């Protein structure tokens, strides 16, 4: 009979068995017994400065490494601060295990101090969750949580542990295997469906791949490339699919959807066959659903049966692991020298009209050269992490991604405040790699407290602010669809400004905060950049710095993201540039 150990010790041992190398966690009353054991644990603990920062960091770690991200928070407010992070990870299928402390079992349901029903709250935004009711079950639950998080379609799993479960003792044995009666993901595609799909691909004249984040999650980039190159099929990717297909490849069409490239959206709209891989026909991708790919038959490959046929009816559904299905398809698909697209895609590419100027109309910086300079200086190899908004779309459009897991962004939930903490997780998981955070001044301030985490851990994240003094994407919609009524989107606006103002200009108040001074308060080097000729030298200085560095680029105030499919519009009805409105 083995020795009895406490639940807190079991927790540490179980995580060691899972090969966890780092956890992002924030202590508190109900997790004290676990924190006492973490004090001597063999894996690393990173302390964020808000639980939301912790879970986004675990998410960034998971997306960039492909491993399970682990976070821990205390009960009540600690647990509720995880909610946005769980929803973010759930939407983008990120493998996370979140542990929360809970009030002791005998106090559950009594509105005890710092009690919140986090299993109830997180039910719709987790793949599964647990409330530990018997310390003997803790190892099995942890084993299952890690299994569920990373198999099938990955997602976040929450384990709520009452404080007494950390103190009570039991014999510890970590299960080798998981047997869940109600959870058996299917990995193999149906052979008949694969055969039908291969026939359709062989017959198609104008096929297009529409690749999503599932290609990255399934580690299927190589299979996608081999199949696309063999059958000469152009590839467009979703926002979360960026990097699944090298954008330098001549078959790459870039991103599709609301802010997708002209060639991607036109190819989808004119295709006779869409091969949708690891994606879910999000409304930002499809535009007006009835007019999405009007002439095409659709093959949909995904591991989640519930995604197949959810929004679009599918001609050839194939449920299973993207990687193995693409391998099977490759054997059955004929090699082609060219496809029926001819010069069409080239013509659409030439319609590209996206801002190439160094300076905008107001003499402030244009975002495109900044992103292209980062691409050039890092030979396209840096990790690019973004917040949410205009800068996110520019990052998607102007950086040429060459490998999976390189572009880290909150796609489905569109979480402002995600990027900065996520960049911490990316840097922790990839110590020797360059990590650039591309942020708006709005999003960055949603988790600005993480400057302390970056500073104290000397994480060399390069923070690049695209500062237009506006919540730019919302302002763009107000400009285009609401008569320039800039309601609550101006970041410089003070109590002394007129209540209505649609004309930002020289007399506007200085924006707070002064990011350079703010960074200095944390001991982080920073510069404000206003001149185009300063872009390159400033980026070089940032890269040369061994620690973190912040660059506050003052960009054009009323710059917009184009092309744009207006909300509810069809993909082929893109607004290409300012003048054409």
């Amino acid at each position: 009979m083995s020795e009895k150990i406490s639940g807190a010790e079991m927790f540490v041992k179980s995580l060691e068995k899972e090969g966890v190398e780092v956890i992002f966690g924030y202590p508190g009353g109900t997790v004290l017994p676990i924190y006492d054991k973490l004090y001597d644990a063999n894996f690393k603990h990173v302390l964020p400065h808000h639980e939301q920062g912790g879970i986004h960091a675990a998410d960034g770690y998971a997306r960039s490494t492909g491993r399970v991200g682990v976070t821990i928070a205390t009960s009540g407010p600690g647990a509720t601060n995880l909610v946005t992070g769980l929803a973010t990870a759930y939407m983008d299928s990120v493998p996370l295990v979140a542990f929360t402390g809970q009030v002791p079992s005998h106090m559950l349901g009594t509105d005890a101090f710092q009690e919140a029903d986090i299993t109830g709250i997180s039910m719709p935004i987790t793949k599964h969750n647990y409330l530990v009711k018997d310390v003997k079950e803790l190892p099995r639950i942890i084993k299952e949580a890690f299994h569920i998080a990373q198999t099938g379609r990955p997602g976040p799993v929450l384990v709520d542990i009452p404080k007494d479960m950390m103190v009570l003792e039991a014999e510890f044995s970590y299960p080798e295997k998981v047997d869940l009666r109600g959870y058996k993901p299917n990995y193999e595609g149906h052979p008949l469906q694969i055969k039908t799909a291969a026939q359709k691909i062989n017959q198609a004249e104008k096929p297009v791949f529409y690749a999503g984040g599932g290609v990255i999650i399934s580690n299927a980039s190589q299979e996608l490339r081999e199949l696309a190159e063999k059958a000469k099929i152009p590839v467009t990717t979703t926002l979360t699919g960026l990097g699944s297909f090298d954008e330098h490849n001549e078959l790459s069409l870039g991103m599709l959807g609301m802010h997708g490239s002209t060639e991607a959206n036109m190819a989808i709209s004119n295709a006779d066959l869409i091969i949708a891989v690891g994606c879910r026909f999000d409304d930002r991708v499809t535009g007006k659903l009835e007019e999405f790919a009007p002439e095409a038959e659709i093959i949909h490959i995904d591991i989640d049966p519930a995604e197949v046929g959810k929004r679009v009816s599918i001609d050839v559904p194939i449920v299973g692991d993207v990687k193995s299905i693409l391998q099977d398809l490759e054997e059955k698909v004929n090699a082609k020298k060219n496809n029926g697209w001819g010069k069409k895609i080239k013509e659409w590419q030439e319609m590209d009209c996206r801002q190439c100027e160094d300076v905008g109309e107001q003499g402030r910086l244009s975002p495109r050269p900044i992103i292209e300079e980062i691409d050039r200086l890092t030979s396209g190899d840096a990790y690019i992490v973004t917040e949410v908004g205009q800068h996110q779309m520019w990052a998607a459009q102007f950086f040429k991604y060459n490998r999976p897991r390189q572009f880290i962004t909150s796609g489905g939930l569109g979480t402002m405040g995600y990027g900065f903490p996520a960049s911490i997780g990316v840097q922790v998981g990839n110590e020797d790699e360059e990590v650039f955070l591309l942020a708006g001044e709005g999003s960055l301030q949603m988790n600005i407290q993480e400057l302390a985490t970056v500073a104290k851990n000397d994480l060399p994240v390069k923070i690049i602010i695209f500062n237009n003094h506006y919540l730019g994407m919302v302002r763009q919609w107000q400009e285009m669809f609401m008569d320039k009524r800039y309601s609550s989107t101006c970041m410089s606006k003070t109590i002394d400004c007129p209540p209505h103002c649609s004309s930002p200009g020289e007399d506007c108040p200085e924006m707070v905060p002064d990011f350079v001074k703010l960074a200095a308060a944390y001991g982080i080097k920073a510069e404000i950049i206003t001149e185009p000729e300063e872009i390159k030298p400033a980026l070089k200085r940032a890269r040369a710095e061994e620690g973190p560095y912040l660059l506050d680029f003052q960009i054009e105030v009323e710059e917009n993201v184009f092309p744009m499919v207006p909300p509810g519009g069809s993909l082929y009805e893109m607004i290409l540039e300012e003048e054409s409105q």
Partner: protein
Amino acid sequence: MKHTVAVKVANEAGVLARIASLFSRRGFNIESLSVGQTEREDVSRITLVVCGNKKDLEQLEKQLNKQVIVYKVSNITNDPAVNRSMALIKVKANYSTRSEIIQIVDVFRGEIVDVANDSVMVEVTGDEGKINAMEELLDPYGIIELVRTGKIAMTRGKK
């Protein structure tokens, strides 16, 4: 169209909350739901009656199947099956009407389970149509209170 869906789930705390939360957030329209233990102590069975078209039902079944605590989902709408629900009906009854009511109940193979001075309580089991018919016939006497269970169903024969 109405569908009957049988769902085998883990018999543990929180399962009904998970299913209810799923229906509410995905906008599925549940007409009735009944849940109880099965021949196995660790398995419960939920019988759902839901309204929707073929596509809605397909999504509902797939979303249910995604739940870790769901073991099996079967749409048994078109299978030969025994469908049952039960109703308790309290009807006004006096000296002159009581025997008529008892006759009606007998015809429906229901039972009088309680008799008071001015009312009787009727228990009736059967498919939806039978219970509706019973309700209609008792209505003229004055229904004081009525409670119905959700439907339970089982396919006939081997299936």
